[in-house]
Structure formats: C-alpha cells, structure tokens
C-alpha cells in the first residue's frame, strides 16, 4: 500500500531502494550537481532497552499534506532543485529502512542544510507515531530527540 500526493512524497508499507530514488531525482534537472541523502533505519537499542520490532502509524492525508509542505518549503527556502521524502508505515524490523530524504541541487551546501532541516521538520510536524516492541511489551514513543 502506498499513499501519494505526488511521486516525490510517499508514505508506504513496502521498502524503498535508495539507489532508485537517487536515480529518480537526477531526472528532475540536468543542473543537479549535488545530492544529499538522509536514511533513517530501525535501531536495536532505545533508552537502554532492546527493541525487537517497530511499528509506525500515520494520519492518512494529513501526514502526506505535511510532507508535501516540507518538500515545497525546502525547495523555496534552501533553493534546492528537488526533494524526495519517503516514510514507511506498518511493521519494521531492526535494521530495515524507515525514512528517506533526498535533496538535490546545483551545489552541495544547500542540500546538506535542506536535508537536515527536512528531517527535523518531519519529526516536529508530521502526524506519524512509532510503537516499539521490547521484552517487557509494546510502548508508543512520545518523545524523540
């Protein structure tokens, strides 16, 4: 299942291929000279607890709307050429991909800044929630650094 506003904003259960997304963003313009990616993956240790599984839930339509706003604002304020944002939902195992942000521009500097801003903004404004499964049970995470 995948819900999309445009092809550069996706919330989906299935995994994504980072190389495919980098190739896709290159097609946005022949002026692209720098591409920065941020890839978030499921880690085993959280607050001293061993995590066996993660589960992500989102508010359909609003989450996609927020990601679309982040993409547009990144393009406008950082002067990048294109941005792709993908977030997975559902059950995710340790080590699997969770979130991908790809920023492309003429030069490298603005892509680093746009990427860092976009992941922080995603965490701050996008209605997506993480549930961690540990040896003691399941818990909804309410504060992430």
């Amino acid at each position, binding site marked *: 299942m995948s819900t999309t506003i445009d092809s550069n904003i996706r919330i989906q259960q299935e995994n994504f291929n980072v190389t495919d997304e980098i190739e896709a963003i290159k097609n946005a313009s022949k002026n692209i000279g720098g591409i920065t990616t941020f890839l*978030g993956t499921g880690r085993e240790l959280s607050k001293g607890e061993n995590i066996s599984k993660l589960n992500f839930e989102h508010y359909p339509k609003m989450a996609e709307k927020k990601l679309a706003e982040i993409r547009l604002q990144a393009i406008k304020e950082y002067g990048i050429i294109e941005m792709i944002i993908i977030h997975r939902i559902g059950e995710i195992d340790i080590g699997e991909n969770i979130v991908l942000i790809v920023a492309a521009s003429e030069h490298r500097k603005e892509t680093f800044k746009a990427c860092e801003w976009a992941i922080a903004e995603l965490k701050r404004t996008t209605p997506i929630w993480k549930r961690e499964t540990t040896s003691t049970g399941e818990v*909804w995470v309410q504060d992430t650094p």
Partner: protein
Amino acid sequence: MITVKYFATLRSLAGKDEDQFSMGSETTLVNLSHEISKTIPKIGEMILGKKVMVSVNLNVISLDAIIKDGDEIAILPPFSGGI
C-alpha cells in the same frame, strides 16, 4: 455530526478509532473537550491542558477554534516519526 479520530496511544486509551458527536451547527474545541471527557476524561484533560494537538480537517487548531457540523477532528499525541 462531528467525527473525532484517536491515534496511537490515544486510541489505546479510548479503546476505539473514532467517535461521533452531535453538537449542533457549530461549537468550540473547549465544548467538544468537555463532551469527550464524559466518556474518556483523560483525553478531555489532555486537550484542555494542551498536552496533545488537535486538527480540524487536517489543520492544527487552537483551543478557541470553532468546530462545525461535519468537521473531522483528530486528537494528535506527540509525534514520533523519523528515527
């Protein structure tokens, strides 16, 4: 009718995905919070104490916002997307 959606930890607290409330043609979020409190006091307290965000038709609102019949409200606990 006003539809109220609960997500993540709030869905666990409510024991359901959503509720329907009949509040006339329009009301305020404060009044809706009091209505929610009748069955789920903790969620009403969280809204009034600004411990959670609330959206109307996908836009985040403040406590004094007006809510109209047919609106979709979502009670949003702190987000934890990304990593």
